[in-house]
């Protein structure tokens, strides 16, 4: 049977990827952040997931405005990094896990009545590759297979935090019913507070970020009731993407153990947040 080994919540700021790709991680600006995420790498190396489900959003890369899936599962066998205007990031291609991806899709659509978009060919942008770089560094090949779960958080109406939480719970049930002996982890990415656009660009709301870091660990049911208006106001128009953390949290047990927490401002225009969590059995 598949075994669930843990969940990670992390921001996916593109400049973090650029800092890794251009060997700037030890520069004064970046060193505190990369020192702070080191326990994530230790945890990932020990947990050794065979498959990581990465919940992320596409930033006008694979999906344009011609088609906007709310929840899309990558069921293909490989996913290349997208060229976001600077050339593709120099990271390995992601190797997919189609059998588990299709099992999850079937379980979500038939048993759980989630209407999932199935994607067989997709490139993946910094939203997915930066979390992998944070967890695994710069290997020649990623040490795990990857199932991308792409969430629309750009085009209003985004799914609610509560819908994301319920999706996470449904994904966990799918994992639990998968007969193959593999270890599975889930990453929820994006956030924390940031606003890239408008006169309010540069917004950071540390007290609100603390509410999310605490709430994800201790009171996710309560956090799932957060409205879009609250998120847009307090986390910022782009910080709303933190709803993707709810999918990760939904996939975990009611009680979780906080293996590691880290928070740092700024990563470019964004508050960086990290949680590494394991189920309390």
């Amino acid at each position, binding site marked *: 049977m598949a075994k669930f080994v843990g969940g990670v919540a992390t921001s996916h700021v593109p*400049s973090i990827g650029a800092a890794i790709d251009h060997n700037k991680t030890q520069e004064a600006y970046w060193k505190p952040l990369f020192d702070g995420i080191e326990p994530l790498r230790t945890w990932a190396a020990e947990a050794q997931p065979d498959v990581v489900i990465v919940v992320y959003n596409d930033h006008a890369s694979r999906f344009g405005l011609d088609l906007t899936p709310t929840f899309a599962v990558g069921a293909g066998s490989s996913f290349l990094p997208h060229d976001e*205007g*600077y050339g593709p990031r120099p990271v390995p291609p992601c190797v997919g896990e189609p059998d588990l991806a299709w099992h999850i899709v079937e379980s979500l659509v038939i048993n759980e009545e989630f209407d999932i978009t199935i994607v067989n060919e997709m490139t993946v942008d910094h939203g997915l590759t930066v979390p992998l770089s944070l967890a695994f560094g710069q290997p020649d090949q990623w040490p795990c297979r990857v199932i991308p779960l792409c969430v629309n958080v750009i085009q209003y109406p985004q799914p609610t935090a509560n819908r994301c939480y319920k999706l996470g719970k449904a994904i966990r049930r799918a994992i639990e019913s998968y007969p193959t002996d593999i270890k599975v982890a889930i990453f929820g990415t994006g956030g924390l507070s940031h606003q890239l656009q408008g006169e*309010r660009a540069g917004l950071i709301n540390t007290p609100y970020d603390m509410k999310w870091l605490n709430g994800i660990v201790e009171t996710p049911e309560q956090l799932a009731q957060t409205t879009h208006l609250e998120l847009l106001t307090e986390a910022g128009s782009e910080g709303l993407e933190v709803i993707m953390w709810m999918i990760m949290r939904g996939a975990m047990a009611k009680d979780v153990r906080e293996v590691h927490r880290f928070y740092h401002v700024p990563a470019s225009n964004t508050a960086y947040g990290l949680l590494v969590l394991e189920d309390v059995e």
Partner: protein
Amino acid sequence: MLMETRDYHHIPGTYVFDGKHMQQGYALSMFCKSLDDASNREAFRNDPENYLNGFEMTVRQKKAVLDREWLELLRLGGNIYYTFKLAIFDGLTMQHVGAAMSGSGMTVDQFRQMMIDGGRPIDGNRREGKTHG
């Protein structure tokens, strides 16, 4: 689509990318998205005005593109993840356009320093009396 006022219109300096906003800027966004392709970037570089004529944008939207009016591009229906493709085309960072969109004459160095100092504060930036776009 209904033109009602939404509760999020009261958040200052924030342009929520809802259906109404998206429709207003659809052609503008499709132009920005076209810059993903190197041959399109080359065509736009060689003859910007002619290239823009391939998109059903308004005269005002085209002018805002040509003049790099980063804030106006949002007001005309743009979204940062799309207009940022134009910024990448220009070799600019998100902090350059962040400074430009602040509408306060802020320089990129001042914007960077604001972020290092903890970012733009939320206090006083939650709600305004008037609505926009």
